[in-house]
């Protein structure tokens, strides 16, 4: 449901309660609707409880809003343990009076129903919990369980309706979790009662690859991102990866970074790549992509900068051994903590998970250079379009954080094929192509800068060699420099 009212106007009008969950506040323009109820639905194990409890705990811990957790789940006792494993100090918050947990249990086998009743007992419990903590947030997880504990669905529905109205009157921000139903958002049709905001969580496993997604189905009176956003559950808890629609407003640095190869810097206007830009190195197998990457890595570490290296094809040890043969030793940089390899088989995770892992590693390691070697490995877990969409998000994220992105791409077949990389290359500021030509029964390595936005660069094909002192150009790199801003 999209509205035409300007985004800013609405955001001001509708107070929000921040979730403190990375990414979710971005998608919702500030959080959940304050003083209202949000329905979080999804299948078993989709992360509903974690989302709800994170909202509550973050509120108590960071936003000065005490909270009440009412859990209707049979395994409510395990909750504290689960949450503690994510670094939340539940007992501490309870002790400080910032959090109150009420475990509601209905054992059907010991209950007989006869005649009229209402759920005033539940109201009394909630009211008591809210008063004793001065709660501004409440989570009901998963109130639908009542339907399996009590027979009279009519009473239950009427009471739930009353409950949600009561919570609203109290001005408390509520999160209600519910199981996904067949063809409906929730099994018991709770969306009929809780209609201010609805968040849908999804956990799919396709070809043994697990992907979690979040979608804001509805958000009354507020602009919100309508896409499906991948999210991740890890030791940091839950984080949503928004598609940053940063447009092209990010800061463009004029600072230059050496490619690590003096002659290549010469081809790039004499100075190398722009900081915070994106570089693509493509070529067929064995053309020297990784060597060029290692040069750049080494140069960055020499400047004392941090490099995060995503490696999909070989092990870091193998790569380092190979690079030593051209005179580049990366080991000291690992020891100094400047270089971090994140080696992973591409098929170990779905694209979204790879994306999530990249975000996380960038967030945690805070590199100034991020390398993805090779981008094309990701094509084994997604289509070219998916990979491109994912790459766009990675690049957005890197650019916002002024991280230089360096990507390699394996060109299939013997011959260079500019079309193959066409989809990806438009996202790149600089594109370097490596080729091997057979001339007079000799293999000739060639390098050329196909484009480099915002700088004068050589338009010539240059021959190079891989020596035990690294990559060396055999011709004058300054030749063929032309001024161009094109890309």
């Amino acid at each position, binding site marked *: 449901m999209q509205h035409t009212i300007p985004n800013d106007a609405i955001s001001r009008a509708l107070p929000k309660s921040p979730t403190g969950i990375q990414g979710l506040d971005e998608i919702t323009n500030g959080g959940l609707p304050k003083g209202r109820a949000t329905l979080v639905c999804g299948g078993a194990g989709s992360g509903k409880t974690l989302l709800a409890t994170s909202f509550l705990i973050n509120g108590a811990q960071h936003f000065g809003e005490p909270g009440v957790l009412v859990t209707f789940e049979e395994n409510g006792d395990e909750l504290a343990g689960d949450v503690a494993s994510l670094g939340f100090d539940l007992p501490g918050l309870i002790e400080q009076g910032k959090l109150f947990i*009420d475990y*509601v*249990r*209905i*054992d059907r086998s*010991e*209950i*007989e*129903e*006869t*005649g*009229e*009743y*209402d*759920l*005033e*007992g*539940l*109201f*009394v*419990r909630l*009211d*008591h919990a809210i008063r004793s903590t001065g709660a501004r947030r409440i989570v009901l997880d998963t109130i639908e369980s*009542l339907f399996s504990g*009590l027979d009279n669905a009519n009473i239950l529905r009427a009471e739930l309706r009353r409950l949600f109205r009561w919570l609203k009157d109290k001005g408390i921000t509520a999160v209600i979790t519910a199981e996904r139903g067949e063809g409906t958002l929730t099994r018991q049709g709770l969306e009929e009662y809780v209609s201010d905001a609805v968040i849908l969580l999804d956990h799919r496993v396709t070809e043994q690859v697990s992907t979690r997604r979040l979608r804001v189905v509805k958000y009354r009176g507020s602009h919100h991102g309508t896409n499906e956003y991948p999210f991740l559950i890890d030791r940091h808890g839950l984080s949503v990866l928004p598609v940053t629609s940063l447009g092209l407003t990010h800061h463009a640095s004029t600072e230059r970074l050496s490619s690590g190869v003096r002659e290549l810097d010469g081809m790039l206007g004499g100075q190398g790549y722009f900081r915070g830009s994106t570089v693509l190195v493509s070529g067929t197998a064995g053309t020297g992509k990784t060597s060029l990457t290692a040069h750049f890595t080494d140069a960055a570490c020499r400047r004392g900068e941090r490099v995060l290296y995503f490696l999909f094809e070989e092990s870091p040890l193998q790569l380092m051994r190979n690079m030593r043969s051209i005179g580049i030793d990366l080991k000291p940089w690992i020891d100094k903590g400047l270089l971090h390899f994140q080696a992973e088989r591409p098929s170990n995770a779905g694209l979204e998970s790879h994306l999530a892992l990249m975000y996380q590693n960038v967030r945690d390691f805070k590199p100034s250079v991020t390398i993805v070697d090779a981008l094309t490995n990701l094509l084994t877990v997604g289509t070219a379009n998916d990979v491109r969409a994912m790459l766009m998000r990675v690049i957005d994220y890197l650019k916002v954080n002024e991280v230089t992105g360096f990507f390699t791409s394996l060109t299939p077949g013997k011959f260079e094929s500019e079309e193959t990389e066409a989809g990806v290359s438009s996202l790149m500021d600089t594109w370097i192509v490596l080729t091997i030509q057979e001339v007079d029964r000799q293999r000739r390595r060639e390098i050329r800068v196909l484009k480099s936005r915002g700088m004068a660069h050589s338009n010539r094909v240059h021959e190079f060699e891989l020596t035990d002192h690294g990559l060396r150009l055999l011709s004058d790199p300054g030749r063929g420099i032309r001024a161009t801003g094109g890309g």
Partner: protein
Amino acid sequence: MQQTFPAEAATDMGNFVLRLYVAGQTPKCMRAFSNLKRICEQYLTNRYQIEMIDLLGNPALARGDQILAVPTLVRRMPEPVKKIIGDLSNTQRVLAGLDLSIEIA
């Protein structure tokens, strides 16, 4: 408000220790109490003790016995604990809930 009926506590084996949770003096709750009293007088003469707990005055007590619905009758003794929710208007079901139907038949 906590009231115990009858005044002399009956806690011997074979006696019924019952707790009726209410929330204020609503018609439903009053009905439940008079129904319970009637049933006990008829089937459990001198063998029962009723404690009435008004949750409005003792909200914290709702957690202990896991009370959600009001009124709720809890059979604390003999064990196991049983719960009957509603205004206790159906005597047969109340007796079944208290495991008394067999004794009577």
